[in-house]
């Protein structure tokens, strides 16, 4: 096993553990910290893919800015830890169905004859993944999606303002 696949599996395990922690932890602060862990390991995977800029953005934007906001909101709201026992029978059903689904996918995956290798783009140069290339792609080929993303953010902001003001008395 080469160093690259070693780090791939290492980061992969951390990503999965972090993601599982987000769902399983009963204290929302722990969930948020697990998410930070998940994001950091994901950034590691990006580095392995030569996507250095994306990795840096992942750490700065997600693990940094967004998670700090998450933690702020969680601490402002100060929610009580969720009690898993309240769910009762439906939790059992959930585990059962989830387990069955997992088993089905697992069986399908090991019986499916996956082709040996995925198509590989041969021409990966040092230029790949650089800020320069991402900028060039964003403003040429992906110009229209880039502009549309702005509309999505705007709709989100307007929506939040509307929902926040919805229950305030008029006048």
């Amino acid at each position, binding site marked *: 096993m080469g160093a690259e696949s070693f780090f791939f599996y290492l980061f992969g395990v951390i990503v999965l553990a972090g993601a599982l922690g987000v769902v399983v932890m009963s204290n929302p602060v722990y969930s948020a910290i697990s998410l930070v862990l998940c994001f950091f390991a994901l950034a590691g995977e990006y580095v392995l893919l030569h996507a250095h800029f994306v990795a840096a953005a992942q750490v700065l934007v997600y693990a940094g800015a967004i998670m700090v906001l998450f933690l702020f909101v969680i601490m402002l709201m100060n929610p009580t830890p969720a009690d898993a026992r309240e769910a009762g029978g439906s939790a059992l059903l959930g585990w059962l169905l989830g387990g069955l689904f997992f088993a089905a996918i697992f069986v399908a995956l090991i019986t499916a004859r996956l082709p040996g290798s995925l198509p590989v783009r041969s021409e990966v140069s040092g230029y790949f993944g650089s800020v320069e290339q991402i900028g*060039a792609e964003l403003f040429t080929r992906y*110009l229209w*999606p880039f502009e549309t993303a702005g509309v999505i953010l705007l709709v989100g902001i307007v929506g939040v303002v509307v929902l926040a003001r919805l229950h305030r008395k008029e006048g």
Partner: protein
Amino acid sequence: MHAVLAPSFTSADFWAIAPVTFLVFCGLAVLLLDAFFPRREHEWLAYLSIASLLLTGALASWLQGCASREALSGMLLTDPLSHFAVLTLLVAAALSCISSLGYLREMRADRAEYYGLLLLCTAGAMLMVQAGDLVMIFLGLETMSIALYVLVAMRPDNRLSTEASLKYFLLGAFTSALLLFGMALVYGGSGGQTNLGEILATLQSSSAGTSPVVLIAGAILVLLGFLFKVAVVPFHMWAPDVYLGAPTNVTAFMATGVKAAAFVVLLRLVGLSSAMTVFRGHLADVLWVLAALSMTVGNLVALQQTSVKRMLAYSSITHAGYMLVGVLTFLTSSGELATRGTGSVLFYLVAYVLMNLGAFGVVALLGREGEEGDNLQCFKGLSRNRPLVALAMAVLMFSLAGIPPSAGFMGKFYLFAAGLKAGYVWLVVLALLNSAISVFYYLRVVMLMYMQQPEGEYRKAETCQVCASCGLALTSLGVVLLGILPGGFLHYALESARSLLP
């Protein structure tokens, strides 16, 4: 030094994005106008919104001549199919705006942001139907959905509305995750393509070393996402609750415009999937079962509803099942028959849009003082109190049931004829049986309106309902016209459908 792609933005690109950009600016203008000129009543913004929707339609039709088939490096398609879908969407949004006149004030939900968000939502749906790239499909879908989550929650102090919004949000987020994961798999499996045309080219030259398993897994997830959005059984659980809780005019737009947009994208994706020969047969089997289930389950549950909104929600699941017959025809046949399958879906979509906008419009007209008029009781003896509204509702119900001469009948006729030609005899028989069952619950409304005495005093509306009634008249006239003279329109639908074939 590396070669940097030269930015290219031609005038053809500009004309291609002009309609949707115009609509986005109109949405922003409506939002800002309310901030600068606040008034207690916001009906003037409704008129402005209707005008901007119509102008967008005119602009799109005018520019259709000078635009090429795709623009902005294949991100945006301006083929006849997307033009057809855009016009359908704009009509749906405009009619939903008309039905909100009066209704929103009656519901104490008259807010200026409603109109701005509706325009932005329509722009998102336009982006989605015009998308020539998986990235754009996703971005359009998100723009549309985020606006819808808010629109659904617009009724203040109403638990049903909040519940509907939360349900729609959670399932929408789930769907987006499926869709995005599927898109990532398709990207990996096709050798790094997101452009629909390039993916198709890769699929057709299957010796190019693509990996079918990853591609198929991706295609399944992407299709699943859109089957959720068009609400076919078993992905329909959200629809009745969301349709019931949302303000009626929003429900009208969700059941028509949004569904039409999702169906058009579904057609594009199914067109791609039919190039995967291994996958095509299996997909056809699955769609067959989904179509049969949707028709039957939707119908049987609709029989038991006492709320007309819920009844229409289940009936919309049934209609999605009927339309899957046309999608199946498109998937498994080639040449002229495939065009007929798609064309009949497009024709039915327009008929369906008109019928449902009208029916939800009637429900909106009956809303009084913060209470919805969607209970079957509200329709008792309506022909005495509001003869014209009752007449329009009767026309729409006959059309939904598929009784000639109406758009619903012609639409079903074309769909089932194409399905029979493609060899789906049993599915068409099931669809016909289901149409017969559906007559019962549609005509129950007509019977209540015409053969029963009104219960209690008829409450007059506080607001002027002239405009909303005019919208109702337009939809019923459209339904009758499409039923009597379907030829020209069918030709248009078939011409639009032709652009889907490579």
